[in-house]
């Protein structure tokens, strides 16, 4: 029997095989995530093709300033988590931990800002099912837009929430000293997940906030 590090599970031969498997597994998982959101994007596309005006009208009712801010926050968080991984790989620990905390904080900020949007939209009666009080020319098909807007942003918000918790756990484990330059796969995986959440938003933002502004 060859030497096996404590962190290598028994089905693997060595740490490198384990890391390879974890990374591949994570990326494969991300591909499924892309498809989850992909259905919503597809639904959006196919409905928008049929009601371009209603979708533009709906999009104009969203808050582009907050939306832009949210995007910037998520982009920043992507950067911080990438830096956290880098720091760990270079042997750091304190900085990595704080970078992870910062990432989680940015995620939470995102959620808060989005919460504000929801509240305003509720007041304006833009939430299908809960409170939808529109009657302009596009009111009926515009519901399709808002339905998709809510399903998509809520599903994304769920992912952000999971990400925030995950990142906090990683920060705690970093502090505890679980990770070394040669082994910090859990952080790498969490970071990948977080980046994907960011990528999804990168597409959601123009589709939901920027239509029909010109």
């Amino acid at each position, binding site marked *: 029997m060859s030497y096996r590090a404590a962190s290598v599970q028994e089905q693997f031969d060595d740490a490198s*095989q384990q890391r390879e*498997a974890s990374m591949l597994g994570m990326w*494969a998982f991300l591909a499924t995530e892309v498809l989850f959101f992909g259905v919503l994007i597809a639904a959006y596309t196919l*409905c928008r093709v*049929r009601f371009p005006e209603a979708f533009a009208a709906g999009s104009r009712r969203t808050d582009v300033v907050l939306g832009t801010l949210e995007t910037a926050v998520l982009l920043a968080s992507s950067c911080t988590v990438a830096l956290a991984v880098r720091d760990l790989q270079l042997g750091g620990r304190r900085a990595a931990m704080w970078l992870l905390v910062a990432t989680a904080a940015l995620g939470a900020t995102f959620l808060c800002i989005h919460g504000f949007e929801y509240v305003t939209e509720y007041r304006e009666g833009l939430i299908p099912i809960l409170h939808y009080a529109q009657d302009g020319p596009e009111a009926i*098909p515009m*519901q399709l837009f808002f339905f998709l807007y809510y399903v998509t942003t809520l599903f994304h918000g769920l992912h952000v929430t999971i990400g925030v918790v995950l990142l906090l756990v990683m920060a705690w484990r970093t502090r505890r000293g679980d990770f070394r330059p040669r082994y910090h796969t859990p952080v790498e995986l969490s970071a990948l997940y977080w980046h994907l959440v960011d990528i999804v938003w990168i597409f959601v933002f123009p589709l939901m906030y920027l239509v029909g502004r010109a």
Partner: protein
Amino acid sequence: MPGNEQAPNYLQVGTTLRSWLTTHDHKKIGILYALAITFFFFLGGAAAALIRLELATPAGDLMTAKTYNKMFTFHGVVMVWFFLIPSIPATLGNFLLPLMIGARDVAFPRLNLLSWYLYIGGGLFTVACLLMGGVDTGWTFYTPFSTMFSNSHVILAVVGVFIVGFSSILTGLNFIVTVHTMRTRGMTWFRLPLFVWSMYGVSLVMMLATPVLAMTLVLIAVERLGGVGIFDPALGGDPVLFQHFFWFYSHPAVYIMILPAMGVVSEVITASVRRRIFGYRFMVYSILGIAVVGFTVWGHHMFVAGQSMYASIVFSILSFIIAVPSAIKVFNWTATLYKGDITFRAPMIYALGFVGLFMVGGLTGLFLAATALDVNLTDTYFVVAHFHYIMVGGAVMAYLGGVHFWWPKITGRMYPESWARFAAIVMFFGFNLTFFPQFLLGAEGMPRRYHEYPAKYELLNVLSSAGASLLALAYLLPLGYLLWSLARGGKAPDNPWDARGLEWETSSPPPPGNFLVQPEVEGGPYAYEEP
């Protein structure tokens, strides 16, 4: 003598219920799946029995229309998601994949166990749905019936399928990573047995199709609960959109059901013919071709659904193209027989049955893929016959063939050969008697999902119901003698069929870590002609 001392096999370590329910051993998880799947098969089969009983007479006299509708829905949901999709991958696949590539386990054993629990969780929802009164939408959940009009337990059923979908995604993910990273030394891609290739293909499909189903089911549930949604025509939404999403998953799903069966058949045929598979590379490419191109043909379920005429033309040609790799496989299996040294044990009978019935089912698929013919045939019993030929005649036969083939390896016991042959032959005849009349019914115009039907269809329906009783008997036989063999069957040697493949090089049943010495591979699979 010390030489006789055997390492304990996987069945001898951890025999308590608790250790089974917390096991990470892929072999035990495979068996857990097998138990659950057998249960669901007979549950779905019982529903089928009731369906055939009702249809034995033209009048709807056995049960009410509503109950009948719930029966075929339950039958379809259970058979598709709780039996056939997990059948080969989650049982034989789980058991054999690591063995065949020379690994100690799958890449993520805990995830593997989680998949099983998700499967059970989804199953509980589905059974709960049945117990609370059932669901009557058909397994296809078409909107707006499922969202606005049905007053049955759609949400429960949808949640059940949603959960089992995750089980399928995780299994697929696990297998893909396993095949990529866990192959033993010397096991290059083109030395993989075709069963492994088919598991790889099927995992791809599971991973890339199932999320679409899951999300679509979420949209259904939200729409049903909230009364608003994108499939609702009252808002300008489009019910046909639902069908696009549903079939984007469900057509690839039919290849989830058939690819593993093809893998099993390739293993069984080569071992029984004692010959290398004919055209190994073409077999591999056709698996991948089916897996990938299978994603582009879904619209053939929607030729008369209000899909545009042009889209139907596109989906029609793609459907014909997807039949080419299947044709390659059929011809290659046949060519493998040439100059072989053929024995006809039960697995081989099942395998040959598979090839024949799959071919008939597949060729009738071509009738349906031809737009002009589908107009008449769609939603008739012709379609029902088509898919039962492939799924029951094809996939279930292959599953049973595989179970018999690897039974000695899995349990360490031999099954009774003559009983097994007898059951396989009864099954073949029972099957044809059940489903061949349905082709004729469909061609005569009898629509599917009919609780009552005009008297002129009676004779063929009676034949079909008679066949179903024979078929039910044929399915009960293996249940009986396989259980018997667990206690009384002869002890199985390590390699009873003198077959090739790493799984036969370890003991029967294998030790917990699969191999006492990590195997190394020096040549391609199916080296039957070399001594």
